[in-house]
Protein backbone atom coordinates (compact mmCIF):
# COMPACT_ATOMS: atom_id res chain seq x y z
CA UNK A 1 0.00 0.00 0.00
CA UNK A 2 1.06 3.51 -0.70
CA UNK A 3 2.55 5.59 2.09
CA UNK A 4 -0.18 7.77 3.64
CA UNK A 5 1.98 10.88 3.37
CA UNK A 6 1.94 10.66 -0.42
CA UNK A 7 -0.57 12.05 -2.90
CA UNK A 8 -3.68 9.84 -2.65
CA UNK A 9 -4.53 10.61 -6.29
CA UNK A 10 -1.19 9.39 -7.58
CA UNK A 11 -2.75 6.50 -9.54
CA UNK A 12 -5.53 8.61 -11.07
CA UNK A 13 -5.39 9.22 -14.78
CA UNK A 14 -5.80 12.96 -14.25
CA UNK A 15 -3.30 13.29 -11.39
CA UNK A 16 -1.78 16.77 -11.28
CA UNK A 17 1.49 16.98 -13.20
CA UNK A 18 4.37 19.45 -13.00
CA UNK A 19 7.93 19.48 -14.31
CA UNK A 20 10.45 18.61 -11.58
CA UNK A 21 12.51 21.66 -12.56
CA UNK A 22 9.57 23.90 -11.57
CA UNK A 23 9.98 22.83 -7.96
CA UNK A 24 13.63 23.80 -8.16
CA UNK A 25 12.72 27.30 -9.34
CA UNK A 26 10.20 27.71 -6.54
CA UNK A 27 12.60 26.33 -3.96
CA UNK A 28 15.39 28.66 -5.05
CA UNK A 29 13.08 31.64 -4.69
CA UNK A 30 12.05 30.56 -1.18
CA UNK A 31 15.66 29.86 -0.18
CA UNK A 32 16.74 33.20 -1.67
CA UNK A 33 14.13 35.06 0.34
CA UNK A 34 15.35 33.38 3.54
CA UNK A 35 19.09 33.86 2.97
CA UNK A 36 20.60 36.89 1.29
CA UNK A 37 23.88 35.03 0.72
CA UNK A 38 22.22 33.02 -2.04
CA UNK A 39 23.14 34.08 -5.58
CA UNK A 40 22.02 32.62 -8.90
CA UNK A 41 24.19 32.08 -11.96
CA UNK A 42 22.96 30.71 -15.25
CA UNK A 43 24.48 29.77 -18.59
CA UNK A 44 21.87 31.22 -20.95
CA UNK A 45 19.02 28.93 -19.85
CA UNK A 46 17.44 31.04 -17.14
CA UNK A 47 13.80 30.29 -17.86
CA UNK A 48 14.36 26.67 -18.97
CA UNK A 49 16.01 25.93 -15.66
CA UNK A 50 13.38 27.99 -13.82
CA UNK A 51 15.94 30.37 -12.37
CA UNK A 52 13.90 33.30 -13.72
CA UNK A 53 11.74 33.22 -10.59
CA UNK A 54 14.83 34.05 -8.51
CA UNK A 55 16.23 36.45 -11.10
CA UNK A 56 13.01 38.48 -11.28
CA UNK A 57 12.91 38.87 -7.51
CA UNK A 58 16.62 39.41 -6.92
CA UNK A 59 18.17 40.84 -10.10
CA UNK A 60 21.17 42.18 -8.15
CA UNK A 61 21.99 38.66 -6.96
CA UNK A 62 21.74 37.07 -10.39
CA UNK A 63 24.60 36.72 -12.90
CA UNK A 64 24.08 35.90 -16.57
CA UNK A 65 27.17 33.92 -17.55
CA UNK A 66 26.34 33.18 -21.18
CA UNK A 67 26.98 29.84 -22.87
CA UNK A 68 30.10 29.15 -20.82
CA UNK A 69 29.64 26.33 -18.37
CA UNK A 70 33.28 26.17 -17.26
CA UNK A 71 32.99 29.81 -16.32
CA UNK A 72 29.67 29.09 -14.61
CA UNK A 73 31.36 26.68 -12.19
CA UNK A 74 34.53 28.69 -11.61
CA UNK A 75 32.84 32.06 -11.09
CA UNK A 76 30.51 30.37 -8.60
CA UNK A 77 33.52 28.98 -6.76
CA UNK A 78 34.93 32.50 -6.45
CA UNK A 79 31.63 33.89 -5.19
CA UNK A 80 31.44 31.09 -2.61
CA UNK A 81 34.96 31.99 -1.49
CA UNK A 82 33.54 35.39 -0.51
CA UNK A 83 30.74 33.89 1.54
CA UNK A 84 28.01 33.54 -1.06
CA UNK A 85 25.91 30.42 -1.60
CA UNK A 86 25.80 30.14 -5.38
CA UNK A 87 23.25 28.09 -7.30
CA UNK A 88 24.34 27.40 -10.88
CA UNK A 89 22.03 26.11 -13.56
CA UNK A 90 22.21 24.75 -17.06
CA UNK A 91 21.22 21.51 -18.71
CA UNK A 92 22.79 18.54 -16.97
CA UNK A 93 24.53 17.60 -20.21
CA UNK A 94 26.53 20.86 -20.04
CA UNK A 95 26.76 21.35 -16.29
CA UNK A 96 28.08 19.02 -14.89
CA UNK A 97 28.63 17.48 -18.33
CA UNK A 98 31.06 20.01 -19.77
CA UNK A 99 32.61 21.49 -16.62
CA UNK A 100 33.46 18.38 -14.60
CA UNK A 101 37.07 19.24 -13.79
CA UNK A 102 36.17 22.78 -12.76
CA UNK A 103 33.50 21.35 -10.46
CA UNK A 104 35.95 18.83 -9.02
CA UNK A 105 38.82 21.23 -8.43
CA UNK A 106 37.38 24.65 -7.83
CA UNK A 107 34.19 23.56 -6.02
CA UNK A 108 34.62 20.15 -4.36
CA UNK A 109 38.42 20.08 -3.82
CA UNK A 110 38.15 23.69 -2.62
CA UNK A 111 35.22 22.73 -0.38
CA UNK A 112 32.93 25.51 -1.62
CA UNK A 113 29.17 25.21 -1.02
CA UNK A 114 28.13 25.64 -4.65
CA UNK A 115 24.81 24.04 -5.64
CA UNK A 116 24.74 22.65 -9.17
CA UNK A 117 21.30 22.18 -10.67
CA UNK A 118 21.36 20.07 -13.83
CA UNK A 119 18.09 20.34 -15.64
CA UNK A 120 16.77 18.26 -18.55
CA UNK A 121 18.48 15.16 -17.21
CA UNK A 122 17.56 11.68 -18.40
CA UNK A 123 16.13 10.48 -21.69
CA UNK A 124 12.74 11.98 -20.81
CA UNK A 125 13.99 15.26 -22.32
CA UNK A 126 12.53 13.64 -25.43
CA UNK A 127 12.52 15.31 -28.86
CA UNK A 128 15.82 17.21 -28.37
CA UNK A 129 17.60 13.89 -28.84
CA UNK A 130 20.67 12.20 -27.47
CA UNK A 131 22.99 15.22 -27.34
CA UNK A 132 20.73 16.76 -24.71
CA UNK A 133 19.89 13.63 -22.72
CA UNK A 134 22.25 13.42 -19.75
CA UNK A 135 22.36 9.83 -18.58
CA UNK A 136 25.86 9.94 -17.12
CA UNK A 137 25.52 12.89 -14.75
CA UNK A 138 24.95 11.03 -11.49
CA UNK A 139 27.94 8.79 -12.19
CA UNK A 140 30.32 11.69 -12.76
CA UNK A 141 29.02 13.62 -9.76
CA UNK A 142 28.87 10.82 -7.23
CA UNK A 143 32.55 9.90 -7.69
CA UNK A 144 33.65 13.36 -6.54
CA UNK A 145 34.51 13.46 -2.81
CA UNK A 146 32.24 15.73 -0.73
CA UNK A 147 29.63 16.03 -3.47
CA UNK A 148 26.03 15.42 -2.38
CA UNK A 149 23.84 14.04 -5.18
CA UNK A 150 20.07 14.47 -5.09
CA UNK A 151 17.55 13.27 -7.66
CA UNK A 152 14.03 14.38 -6.68
CA UNK A 153 10.98 12.38 -7.82
CA UNK A 154 8.59 15.29 -8.37
CA UNK A 155 8.26 19.03 -8.29
CA UNK A 156 7.35 19.20 -4.60
CA UNK A 157 10.32 17.07 -3.57
CA UNK A 158 12.56 19.19 -5.82
CA UNK A 159 11.40 22.30 -4.00
CA UNK A 160 12.18 20.76 -0.61
CA UNK A 161 15.52 19.41 -1.85
CA UNK A 162 16.52 22.85 -3.13
CA UNK A 163 15.68 24.51 0.17
CA UNK A 164 17.58 21.79 2.04
CA UNK A 165 20.57 22.06 -0.31
CA UNK A 166 20.80 25.79 0.41
CA UNK A 167 21.22 25.02 4.10
CA UNK A 168 24.08 22.52 3.83
CA UNK A 169 27.73 23.50 3.75
CA UNK A 170 28.46 20.85 1.14
CA UNK A 171 28.58 21.17 -2.62
CA UNK A 172 25.39 19.64 -3.98
CA UNK A 173 24.28 18.32 -7.35
CA UNK A 174 20.51 18.38 -7.92
CA UNK A 175 19.21 16.44 -10.91
CA UNK A 176 16.12 17.85 -12.61
CA UNK A 177 13.86 16.73 -15.44
CA UNK A 178 12.18 18.73 -18.16
CA UNK A 179 8.78 17.13 -18.80
CA UNK A 180 5.73 17.24 -16.60
CA UNK A 181 5.42 14.21 -14.34
CA UNK A 182 2.83 13.34 -11.66
CA UNK A 183 2.94 14.86 -8.21
CA UNK A 184 3.73 11.91 -5.98
CA UNK A 185 4.59 13.62 -2.73
CA UNK A 186 2.63 16.21 -0.77
CA UNK A 187 3.53 19.08 1.51
CA UNK A 188 3.36 16.58 4.38
CA UNK A 189 5.85 14.10 2.92
CA UNK A 190 9.05 14.42 4.94
CA UNK A 191 12.30 15.17 3.11
CA UNK A 192 15.78 14.96 4.49
CA UNK A 193 19.06 14.85 2.56
CA UNK A 194 20.55 11.39 2.92
CA UNK A 195 17.30 9.71 3.94
CA UNK A 196 15.66 7.06 1.77
CA UNK A 197 11.91 6.72 2.10
CA UNK A 198 9.45 3.86 1.87
CA UNK A 199 6.80 4.87 -0.66
CA UNK A 200 5.03 1.50 -0.96
CA UNK A 201 4.78 -1.40 1.50
CA UNK A 202 3.10 -4.80 1.35
CA UNK A 203 -0.50 -4.89 2.59
CA UNK A 204 -1.27 -6.16 6.11
CA UNK A 205 2.29 -6.64 7.28
CA UNK A 206 3.10 -9.35 4.73
CA UNK A 207 6.81 -9.90 4.04
CA UNK A 208 7.93 -8.22 0.81
CA UNK A 209 9.24 -10.62 -1.84
CA UNK A 210 11.41 -8.04 -3.52
CA UNK A 211 12.52 -4.47 -3.03
CA UNK A 212 12.39 -1.78 -5.68
CA UNK A 213 14.73 1.17 -5.23
CA UNK A 214 13.95 4.00 -7.60
CA UNK A 215 14.93 7.60 -8.12
CA UNK A 216 13.65 10.60 -10.06
CA UNK A 217 11.04 10.56 -12.81
CA UNK A 218 10.56 6.80 -12.73
CA UNK A 219 9.23 6.65 -9.15
CA UNK A 220 5.70 6.81 -10.53
CA UNK A 221 6.43 3.82 -12.80
CA UNK A 222 7.73 1.83 -9.84
CA UNK A 223 4.60 2.60 -7.81
CA UNK A 224 2.34 1.54 -10.66
CA UNK A 225 4.40 -1.65 -11.00
CA UNK A 226 4.11 -2.34 -7.27
CA UNK A 227 0.33 -1.96 -7.42
CA UNK A 228 0.07 -4.25 -10.45
CA UNK A 229 2.30 -6.85 -8.80
CA UNK A 230 0.17 -6.76 -5.66
CA UNK A 231 -2.89 -7.47 -7.77
CA UNK A 232 -1.22 -10.64 -9.00
CA UNK A 233 -0.18 -11.59 -5.47
CA UNK A 234 3.43 -10.40 -5.40
CA UNK A 235 4.24 -8.03 -2.56
CA UNK A 236 7.13 -5.59 -2.90
CA UNK A 237 8.53 -2.65 -1.03
CA UNK A 238 9.35 0.53 -2.97
CA UNK A 239 12.02 2.90 -1.72
CA UNK A 240 12.32 6.40 -3.13
CA UNK A 241 16.04 7.12 -3.10
CA UNK A 242 16.15 10.88 -3.57
CA UNK A 243 19.68 11.19 -2.20
CA UNK A 244 22.13 9.07 -4.16
CA UNK A 245 25.03 10.34 -2.09
CA UNK A 246 25.48 10.12 0.82
CA UNK A 247 23.73 6.80 0.48
CA UNK A 248 21.28 5.81 3.21
CA UNK A 249 23.13 2.54 3.78
CA UNK A 250 21.08 1.51 6.80
CA UNK A 251 17.80 1.61 4.90
CA UNK A 252 19.31 -0.15 1.87
CA UNK A 253 20.94 -2.94 3.89
CA UNK A 254 17.73 -3.46 5.88
CA UNK A 255 15.80 -3.64 2.62
CA UNK A 256 18.17 -6.31 1.32
CA UNK A 257 17.76 -8.30 4.54
CA UNK A 258 14.00 -7.96 4.44
CA UNK A 259 13.44 -8.70 0.74
CA UNK A 260 16.45 -10.77 -0.33
CA UNK A 261 16.28 -9.33 -3.83
CA UNK A 262 16.38 -5.81 -5.24
CA UNK A 263 15.48 -4.07 -8.49
CA UNK A 264 16.97 -0.62 -9.08
CA UNK A 265 15.25 1.80 -11.43
CA UNK A 266 16.70 5.01 -12.81
CA UNK A 267 16.77 7.15 -15.91
CA UNK A 268 20.55 6.94 -16.12
CA UNK A 269 23.28 4.66 -17.38
CA UNK A 270 23.32 1.44 -15.44
CA UNK A 271 27.09 1.82 -15.28
CA UNK A 272 27.97 4.10 -12.40
CA UNK A 273 24.44 5.12 -11.56
CA UNK A 274 22.20 4.76 -8.54
CA UNK A 275 21.97 0.99 -9.02
CA UNK A 276 25.73 0.86 -9.05
CA UNK A 277 25.86 2.81 -5.81
CA UNK A 278 23.53 0.26 -4.23
CA UNK A 279 25.53 -2.65 -5.57
CA UNK A 280 28.72 -1.18 -4.09
CA UNK A 281 27.03 -0.91 -0.71
CA UNK A 282 25.36 -4.32 -0.76
CA UNK A 283 28.34 -6.28 -2.12
CA UNK A 284 30.30 -5.16 0.93
CA UNK A 285 27.52 -5.57 3.47
CA UNK A 286 24.72 -7.92 2.47
CA UNK A 287 24.87 -9.19 -1.11
CA UNK A 288 21.51 -10.08 -2.68
CA UNK A 289 20.48 -10.64 -6.31
CA UNK A 290 19.94 -7.32 -8.09
CA UNK A 291 18.39 -6.38 -11.43
CA UNK A 292 19.19 -3.01 -12.98
CA UNK A 293 16.65 -0.91 -14.91
CA UNK A 294 18.43 1.91 -16.72
CA UNK A 295 20.18 2.78 -19.95
CA UNK A 296 22.48 -0.02 -21.00
CA UNK A 297 25.64 1.56 -22.35
CA UNK A 298 24.03 3.44 -25.22
CA UNK A 299 23.01 6.99 -26.15
CA UNK A 300 19.51 8.40 -26.27
CA UNK A 301 17.51 9.62 -29.29
CA UNK A 302 14.49 11.72 -30.21
CA UNK A 303 10.98 10.65 -29.26
CA UNK A 304 8.37 11.32 -26.64
CA UNK A 305 9.14 10.59 -23.02
CA UNK A 306 6.82 7.56 -23.00
CA UNK A 307 8.19 6.21 -26.31
CA UNK A 308 11.73 6.47 -25.01
CA UNK A 309 10.97 4.87 -21.65
CA UNK A 310 9.41 1.97 -23.56
CA UNK A 311 12.31 1.71 -26.01
CA UNK A 312 14.99 1.76 -23.31
CA UNK A 313 13.02 -0.76 -21.22
CA UNK A 314 12.19 1.46 -18.27
CA UNK A 315 8.45 1.10 -18.44
CA UNK A 316 6.13 -0.38 -15.83
CA UNK A 317 6.12 -3.73 -17.59
CA UNK A 318 9.93 -3.80 -17.58
CA UNK A 319 9.99 -3.16 -13.84
CA UNK A 320 7.44 -5.95 -13.30
CA UNK A 321 9.56 -8.35 -15.38
CA UNK A 322 12.68 -7.38 -13.48
CA UNK A 323 10.94 -8.12 -10.17
CA UNK A 324 9.89 -11.55 -11.43
CA UNK A 325 13.43 -12.25 -12.66
CA UNK A 326 15.14 -11.15 -9.48
CA UNK A 327 12.77 -13.25 -7.36
CA UNK A 328 13.82 -16.33 -9.34
CA UNK A 329 17.43 -15.63 -8.44
CA UNK A 330 16.75 -15.59 -4.69
CA UNK A 331 18.48 -18.36 -2.80
Amino acid at each position, binding site marked *: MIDPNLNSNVFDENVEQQPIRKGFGEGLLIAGEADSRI*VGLCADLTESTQMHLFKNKFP*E*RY*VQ*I*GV*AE*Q*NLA*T*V*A*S*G*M*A*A*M*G*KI*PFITSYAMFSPGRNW*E*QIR*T*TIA*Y*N*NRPVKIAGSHAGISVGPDGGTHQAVEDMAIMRVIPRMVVISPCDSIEARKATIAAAKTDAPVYIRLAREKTPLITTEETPFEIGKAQVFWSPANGVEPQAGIVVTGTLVIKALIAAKALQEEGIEVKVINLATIKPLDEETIINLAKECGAIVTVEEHQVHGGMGGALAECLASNYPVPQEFIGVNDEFGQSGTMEELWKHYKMDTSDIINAVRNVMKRKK
Partner: protein
Amino acid sequence: METLTDERIKELELKANEIRQSIIEMLLEAKSGHTAGPLGMADIFTYLYFHGLKHNPKNPEWEERDRLVLSNGHICPVLYATMAHAGYFPIEELKTLRKFGSRLQGHPHRDFLPMLETSSGPLGSGLSQTVGMALADRIDSGRSSDRTIYCLMSDGEHDSGNIWEGAMLAGKEKLQNLIAIVDRNNIQIDGFTEDIMPLEPLADKWRAWNWHVQEINGHDMQEINNAIGEAKAVFEKPSVIIAHTIPGKGVKEFERKFEWHGKPPNAEEAAVALNELRSLGGQISGYHND
Protein backbone atom coordinates in the same frame (compact mmCIF):
# COMPACT_ATOMS: atom_id res chain seq x y z
CA MET B 1 50.06 54.72 -5.33
CA GLU B 2 53.08 56.76 -4.38
CA THR B 3 56.35 56.43 -6.23
CA LEU B 4 58.81 54.10 -4.54
CA THR B 5 61.92 55.67 -3.07
CA ASP B 6 65.29 54.30 -4.16
CA GLU B 7 65.75 52.95 -0.67
CA ARG B 8 62.42 51.11 -0.75
CA ILE B 9 63.22 49.65 -4.16
CA LYS B 10 66.53 48.37 -2.80
CA GLU B 11 64.76 46.74 0.16
CA LEU B 12 62.24 45.04 -2.08
CA GLU B 13 64.95 43.82 -4.45
CA LEU B 14 66.92 42.31 -1.60
CA LYS B 15 63.78 40.62 -0.29
CA ALA B 16 63.11 39.21 -3.77
CA ASN B 17 66.65 37.88 -3.79
CA GLU B 18 66.09 36.10 -0.46
CA ILE B 19 62.87 34.63 -1.78
CA ARG B 20 64.69 33.35 -4.88
CA GLN B 21 67.21 31.66 -2.63
CA SER B 22 64.39 30.01 -0.71
CA ILE B 23 62.87 28.83 -3.98
CA ILE B 24 66.14 27.14 -4.99
CA GLU B 25 66.57 25.62 -1.53
CA MET B 26 63.06 24.21 -1.37
CA LEU B 27 63.17 22.79 -4.88
CA LEU B 28 66.51 21.13 -4.16
CA GLU B 29 65.01 19.52 -1.08
CA ALA B 30 61.79 18.51 -2.87
CA LYS B 31 63.65 16.96 -5.83
CA SER B 32 60.71 17.82 -8.07
CA GLY B 33 58.78 20.94 -9.02
CA HIS B 34 59.02 23.98 -11.25
CA THR B 35 61.95 26.39 -11.31
CA ALA B 36 61.62 28.91 -14.12
CA GLY B 37 58.19 30.36 -13.32
CA PRO B 38 58.76 30.88 -9.59
CA LEU B 39 62.09 32.67 -10.16
CA GLY B 40 60.52 34.81 -12.89
CA MET B 41 57.65 35.94 -10.69
CA ALA B 42 59.65 36.54 -7.51
CA ASP B 43 59.73 40.31 -8.01
CA ILE B 44 55.99 40.67 -8.48
CA PHE B 45 55.19 38.40 -5.52
CA THR B 46 57.65 40.30 -3.36
CA TYR B 47 56.16 43.64 -4.37
CA LEU B 48 52.64 42.45 -3.58
CA TYR B 49 53.27 40.73 -0.25
CA PHE B 50 55.76 43.33 1.02
CA HIS B 51 54.23 46.49 -0.37
CA GLY B 52 51.10 46.44 -2.49
CA LEU B 53 48.75 43.93 -0.90
CA LYS B 54 46.32 44.78 1.89
CA HIS B 55 46.74 41.75 4.12
CA ASN B 56 47.72 40.58 7.58
CA PRO B 57 49.92 37.48 7.84
CA LYS B 58 48.96 37.14 11.50
CA ASN B 59 45.25 37.17 10.64
CA PRO B 60 44.82 35.47 7.26
CA GLU B 61 41.03 35.43 7.71
CA TRP B 62 40.82 39.24 7.94
CA GLU B 63 37.63 39.98 6.04
CA GLU B 64 38.79 43.28 4.54
CA ARG B 65 41.97 41.84 3.05
CA ASP B 66 42.69 41.95 -0.66
CA ARG B 67 42.35 38.55 -2.30
CA LEU B 68 45.25 37.06 -4.24
CA VAL B 69 44.54 33.99 -6.34
CA LEU B 70 47.37 32.10 -7.98
CA SER B 71 45.86 30.59 -11.10
CA ASN B 72 48.91 28.74 -12.40
CA GLY B 73 49.37 26.73 -9.23
CA HIS B 74 52.55 25.03 -10.43
CA ILE B 75 54.59 28.13 -9.60
CA CYS B 76 53.56 27.75 -5.94
CA PRO B 77 57.17 27.65 -4.68
CA VAL B 78 57.20 31.44 -5.15
CA LEU B 79 53.83 31.78 -3.41
CA TYR B 80 54.91 29.61 -0.47
CA ALA B 81 58.33 31.25 -0.19
CA THR B 82 56.88 34.76 -0.27
CA MET B 83 54.18 33.91 2.25
CA ALA B 84 56.75 32.38 4.58
CA HIS B 85 59.04 35.40 4.33
CA ALA B 86 56.02 37.65 4.91
CA GLY B 87 55.31 35.81 8.16
CA TYR B 88 52.44 33.45 7.35
CA PHE B 89 54.40 30.40 8.48
CA PRO B 90 58.00 29.51 9.40
CA ILE B 91 60.57 29.78 6.60
CA GLU B 92 61.96 26.44 7.77
CA GLU B 93 58.69 24.79 6.70
CA LEU B 94 59.52 25.56 3.06
CA LYS B 95 61.78 22.51 3.07
CA THR B 96 58.71 20.27 3.42
CA LEU B 97 57.52 21.21 -0.08
CA ARG B 98 55.91 18.25 -1.89
CA LYS B 99 56.63 15.85 0.97
CA PHE B 100 54.09 13.53 2.60
CA GLY B 101 52.09 15.28 5.29
CA SER B 102 53.32 18.73 4.31
CA ARG B 103 51.03 21.74 4.24
CA LEU B 104 52.93 22.74 1.12
CA GLN B 105 51.37 20.41 -1.43
CA GLY B 106 52.88 20.06 -4.90
CA HIS B 107 50.07 22.26 -6.14
CA PRO B 108 48.29 24.50 -3.60
CA HIS B 109 45.51 22.82 -1.64
CA ARG B 110 43.36 24.71 0.87
CA ASP B 111 42.59 21.56 2.86
CA PHE B 112 46.25 21.50 3.89
CA LEU B 113 46.92 25.24 3.99
CA PRO B 114 43.61 27.03 4.68
CA MET B 115 45.18 30.48 4.43
CA LEU B 116 45.33 30.03 0.64
CA GLU B 117 42.55 31.83 -1.22
CA THR B 118 42.10 28.83 -3.50
CA SER B 119 43.47 25.46 -4.48
CA SER B 120 44.95 25.50 -7.94
CA GLY B 121 46.96 23.59 -10.45
CA PRO B 122 44.68 22.72 -13.36
CA LEU B 123 45.28 25.71 -15.63
CA GLY B 124 42.74 28.21 -16.82
CA SER B 125 40.37 28.42 -13.88
CA GLY B 126 41.87 31.07 -11.59
CA LEU B 127 40.74 34.14 -13.50
CA SER B 128 37.09 33.13 -13.31
CA GLN B 129 37.37 32.53 -9.58
CA THR B 130 38.62 36.08 -9.12
CA VAL B 131 35.79 37.30 -11.35
CA GLY B 132 33.41 35.56 -8.94
CA MET B 133 35.18 37.13 -5.96
CA ALA B 134 34.98 40.57 -7.55
CA LEU B 135 31.29 40.09 -8.34
CA ALA B 136 30.59 39.00 -4.75
CA ASP B 137 32.58 41.98 -3.46
CA ARG B 138 30.48 44.31 -5.61
CA ILE B 139 27.24 42.79 -4.28
CA ASP B 140 28.48 43.40 -0.73
CA SER B 141 30.29 46.72 -1.09
CA GLY B 142 29.10 48.29 -4.32
CA ARG B 143 31.44 49.97 -6.77
CA SER B 144 33.27 51.88 -4.07
CA SER B 145 34.76 48.72 -2.59
CA ASP B 146 38.15 49.13 -1.00
CA ARG B 147 39.17 45.53 -1.61
CA THR B 148 41.20 44.57 -4.64
CA ILE B 149 41.04 41.08 -6.11
CA TYR B 150 44.26 39.98 -7.81
CA CYS B 151 44.65 37.10 -10.22
CA LEU B 152 48.19 36.00 -10.89
CA MET B 153 48.22 33.96 -14.04
CA SER B 154 50.48 32.59 -16.73
CA ASP B 155 50.66 33.31 -20.42
CA GLY B 156 50.46 29.64 -21.40
CA GLU B 157 47.11 29.19 -19.74
CA HIS B 158 45.57 31.65 -22.18
CA ASP B 159 45.28 28.59 -24.45
CA SER B 160 42.35 27.59 -22.25
CA GLY B 161 38.83 28.71 -23.12
CA ASN B 162 37.99 29.16 -19.46
CA ILE B 163 40.30 32.22 -19.44
CA TRP B 164 38.49 33.75 -22.40
CA GLU B 165 35.14 33.09 -20.73
CA GLY B 166 36.21 34.74 -17.50
CA ALA B 167 37.78 37.70 -19.28
CA MET B 168 34.60 38.33 -21.29
CA LEU B 169 32.43 38.26 -18.18
CA ALA B 170 34.73 40.63 -16.25
CA GLY B 171 34.66 43.06 -19.18
CA LYS B 172 30.89 42.87 -19.40
CA GLU B 173 30.53 43.47 -15.67
CA LYS B 174 33.14 46.30 -15.63
CA LEU B 175 34.81 44.83 -12.56
CA GLN B 176 36.98 47.75 -11.47
CA ASN B 177 38.04 45.86 -8.31
CA LEU B 178 39.81 43.16 -10.34
CA ILE B 179 43.47 43.20 -11.41
CA ALA B 180 44.94 40.35 -13.43
CA ILE B 181 48.72 40.09 -13.68
CA VAL B 182 49.93 37.95 -16.55
CA ASP B 183 53.37 36.40 -16.29
CA ARG B 184 54.41 36.93 -19.91
CA ASN B 185 57.52 34.77 -19.88
CA ASN B 186 56.89 33.21 -23.29
CA ILE B 187 57.44 29.62 -22.22
CA GLN B 188 55.23 26.66 -21.41
CA ILE B 189 56.03 22.98 -20.89
CA ASP B 190 56.36 21.99 -24.53
CA GLY B 191 58.25 25.08 -25.68
CA PHE B 192 57.79 28.75 -26.52
CA THR B 193 54.21 30.00 -26.30
CA GLU B 194 54.25 31.43 -29.80
CA ASP B 195 55.20 28.00 -31.18
CA ILE B 196 52.72 26.02 -29.08
CA MET B 197 49.75 28.33 -29.61
CA PRO B 198 50.43 31.92 -30.59
CA LEU B 199 48.96 34.40 -28.10
CA GLU B 200 49.93 37.61 -29.84
CA PRO B 201 48.54 40.16 -30.13
CA LEU B 202 47.89 39.43 -26.46
CA ALA B 203 47.30 43.00 -25.32
CA ASP B 204 44.79 43.49 -28.12
CA LYS B 205 42.89 40.42 -27.00
CA TRP B 206 42.47 41.88 -23.52
CA ARG B 207 41.49 45.26 -24.98
CA ALA B 208 38.86 43.51 -27.07
CA TRP B 209 37.48 41.96 -23.88
CA ASN B 210 37.08 45.52 -22.54
CA TRP B 211 39.92 45.48 -20.07
CA HIS B 212 42.34 48.31 -19.27
CA VAL B 213 45.70 47.00 -20.46
CA GLN B 214 49.25 47.87 -19.36
CA GLU B 215 52.52 46.23 -20.31
CA ILE B 216 55.47 46.44 -17.97
CA ASN B 217 58.87 45.04 -17.15
CA GLY B 218 57.92 42.51 -14.48
CA HIS B 219 61.31 42.82 -12.74
CA ASP B 220 61.19 46.57 -12.21
CA MET B 221 59.69 47.43 -8.82
CA GLN B 222 58.90 50.99 -9.85
CA GLU B 223 57.05 49.83 -12.97
CA ILE B 224 55.12 47.23 -11.00
CA ASN B 225 54.19 49.86 -8.44
CA ASN B 226 53.09 52.38 -11.05
CA ALA B 227 51.04 49.83 -12.97
CA ILE B 228 49.15 48.68 -9.86
CA GLY B 229 48.52 52.32 -8.99
CA GLU B 230 47.15 53.05 -12.44
CA ALA B 231 45.03 49.88 -12.40
CA LYS B 232 43.44 50.95 -9.13
CA ALA B 233 42.67 54.37 -10.58
CA VAL B 234 40.70 52.90 -13.49
CA PHE B 235 37.03 52.87 -12.58
CA GLU B 236 35.20 51.66 -15.64
CA LYS B 237 37.07 48.46 -16.41
CA PRO B 238 38.94 45.56 -14.94
CA SER B 239 42.69 45.88 -15.38
CA VAL B 240 45.29 43.53 -16.74
CA ILE B 241 49.00 44.05 -16.33
CA ILE B 242 51.00 42.06 -18.83
CA ALA B 243 54.28 41.65 -16.99
CA HIS B 244 57.14 40.75 -19.27
CA THR B 245 59.39 38.50 -17.25
CA ILE B 246 62.44 36.37 -17.79
CA PRO B 247 61.82 32.75 -16.85
CA GLY B 248 64.48 31.65 -14.38
CA LYS B 249 65.31 35.31 -13.60
CA GLY B 250 68.20 35.78 -11.20
CA VAL B 251 70.16 32.71 -12.25
CA LYS B 252 71.92 33.25 -15.59
CA GLU B 253 72.15 29.53 -16.32
CA PHE B 254 68.39 29.08 -16.02
CA GLU B 255 67.19 32.25 -17.70
CA ARG B 256 65.00 31.98 -20.81
CA LYS B 257 65.31 28.20 -21.03
CA PHE B 258 61.98 26.39 -21.21
CA GLU B 259 63.70 23.17 -20.07
CA TRP B 260 63.64 24.76 -16.61
CA HIS B 261 59.87 25.07 -16.66
CA GLY B 262 59.15 21.80 -14.92
CA LYS B 263 62.33 20.51 -13.24
CA PRO B 264 64.19 21.28 -10.03
CA PRO B 265 67.94 21.97 -9.79
CA ASN B 266 70.24 19.16 -8.66
CA ALA B 267 72.78 19.81 -5.90
CA GLU B 268 75.43 21.17 -8.25
CA GLU B 269 73.02 23.42 -10.13
CA ALA B 270 71.53 24.65 -6.87
CA ALA B 271 74.99 25.57 -5.57
CA VAL B 272 75.68 27.59 -8.69
CA ALA B 273 72.29 29.28 -8.42
CA LEU B 274 72.64 30.10 -4.73
CA ASN B 275 76.12 31.43 -5.23
CA GLU B 276 74.93 33.67 -7.98
CA LEU B 277 71.98 34.93 -5.94
CA ARG B 278 74.02 35.46 -2.76
CA SER B 279 76.70 37.38 -4.64
CA LEU B 280 73.99 39.42 -6.37
CA GLY B 281 75.16 38.15 -9.73
CA GLY B 282 78.85 38.53 -8.89
CA GLN B 283 78.55 42.11 -7.62
CA ILE B 284 79.65 41.11 -4.15
CA SER B 285 81.82 38.22 -3.10
CA GLY B 286 79.84 35.08 -2.55
CA TYR B 287 79.80 33.18 0.67
CA HIS B 288 78.68 29.88 -0.77
CA ASN B 289 81.75 28.96 -2.78
CA ASP B 290 82.33 25.59 -1.18
